[in-house]
């Protein structure tokens, strides 16, 4: 049984269709990456899975459970954790309170203290910054709070939307160190990433999204061996 199973997903905003019938399968423990040019539906796909955008057609199943009609809070409770693009922190809360919000649901709240230690071990800077108000953090620190907050929730599938977007190269390296650790931990991860060749080194599978549909799917090594894919769709 697939962990995540999407069939014929269509979604959009107003009259504009963004996703034109997407299908995707993810296995338990798989590290999958969505790549492709900007504005072609990667973020919309994650937002549809987490219920922030209501898909107009298609089926979504998570661990065999139909999540298509669920509210976002029910989808979180089912185990899909979405770390959104742009972090979307709670700006007037401290780092610690942001992290604790990640463990808001009762199942996660019971594990809060232990999870907090795990997050601090993975992202030590957050421990030093724990009493700082989120809006005063640097871009890299905000990203780490966003990821840490997602990890606080536990869950069975972690979705990261552009974890390295808009960061300085040295901070991107730190984020990739976290990605490598997540990869080793055997978690199921679905990541949206602009830098296709870099994420290809970590991903079990890559899915290239162009104009609302998947135009290519394959393993990371396979992708790196076919430079023409990059040239055709990613202009590089």
């Amino acid at each position, binding site marked *: 049984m697939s962990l995540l199973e999407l069939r014929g997903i269509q979604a959009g905003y107003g009259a504009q269709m963004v996703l034109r019938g997407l299908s995707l399968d993810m296995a338990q423990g798989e590290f999958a990456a969505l790549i492709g040019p900007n504005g072609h539906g990667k973020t919309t796909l994650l937002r549809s899975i*987490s219920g922030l955008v209501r898909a107009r057609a298609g089926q979504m199943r998570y661990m065999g459970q139909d999540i298509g009609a669920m509210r*976002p*809070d029910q989808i*979180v409770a089912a185990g899909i954790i979405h770390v*959104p693009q*742009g972090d979307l922190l*709670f700006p*007037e809360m401290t780092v610690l309170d942001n992290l604790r919000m990640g463990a808001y*649901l009762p199942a996660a709240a019971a594990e809060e203290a232990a999870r907090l230690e795990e997050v601090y071990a993975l992202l030590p800077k957050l421990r030093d910054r724990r009493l700082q108000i989120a809006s005063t953090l640097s871009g890299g620190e905000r990203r780490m709070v966003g990821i840490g907050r997602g990890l606080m*929730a536990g869950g069975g599938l972690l979705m990261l939307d552009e974890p390295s977007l808009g960061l300085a190269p040295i901070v991107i390296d730190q984020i990739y160190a976290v990605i490598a650790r997540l990869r080793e931990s055997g978690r199921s991860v679905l990541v949206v990433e602009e830098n296709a060749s870099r994420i290809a080194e970590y991903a079990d599978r890559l899915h290239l999204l162009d104009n609302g549909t998947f135009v290519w799917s394959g393993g990371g090594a396979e992708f790196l061996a076919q430079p023409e894919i990059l040239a055709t769709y990613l202009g590089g």
Partner: protein
Amino acid sequence: MDVAIQIVASGLTLGAMYAISTVGLALVYGALNMLNMAHGAILALGGYVCYQVMAAMGLPAPLGVLAAMVVCGAVGVLIYHLAARPMLRSQNFETQIFIATIGIGAILQDLILRAFGPQPKPQPLALSGALNVGGVAVPYQNLLILAVALVMMAAMAWLLGRTRTGRAIRATAQNRDAAQLMGVRIGRVYAQVLALSGALAGLSGILLSSISGLLPTMGSDPMLKAFVICVVAGLGQVQGAAIAALVLGLLEALIQYLFGVQYAFAILLMLVIGVLIWRPFGIFGRRQVVRL
């Protein structure tokens, strides 16, 4: 000295009444970006429900207060389900709900007018007697209002700061999408916030009418002042609104003494304009910075 005590006593009473009516308004704006124009009518409804329970049905005061808060809280929930929820996904939610709640307020006020008539009525919940403070008689009624306001503010601070419900409310106010991604059921938060705001408006209506009597239109003036206070504090700043209410109450009492009652509101509004030129986002509001 007598004068100072007098000014402080009446200023704190005014401020306390403003605080109770303002906090609910600020809470709703903070969580939903919704200016609830029916707030004034809900205020009046609270006063009348208490009157009905105590004067017409002859029941004791605590039941009157409880009934008013429950009825007004229920009106808040109704406003959520009938007006706010169907509009939430709209691009122009703020404008639409603003206009819709003006209509709801008018309906509510007309229903009160129809049920109770246009003549002023006395609020039966009133304490007689006064406490002697340094030679000045401070009515027990004023002390009661102050005490209720302090208890209410402490309860709100506890609710927002220390409870799970409060964390969900703050999270929703600060980032609606992120709150949902944490598993917060925002529809329930909205309903809770409107219920809470309604109950506080009901309480505020009882206290206001215990001093100035019941009239179907009694809510419009306090609601106007509550808006002014919300804007001064920074829209959606709940604790800031409580502090601003007390300060503006004291200021109003001082202006009344120095220049006369007729100038109080005008001078207050001038001060408000000054504050907004200095800090357009309110004294306690944060400068809105758009980050990419």
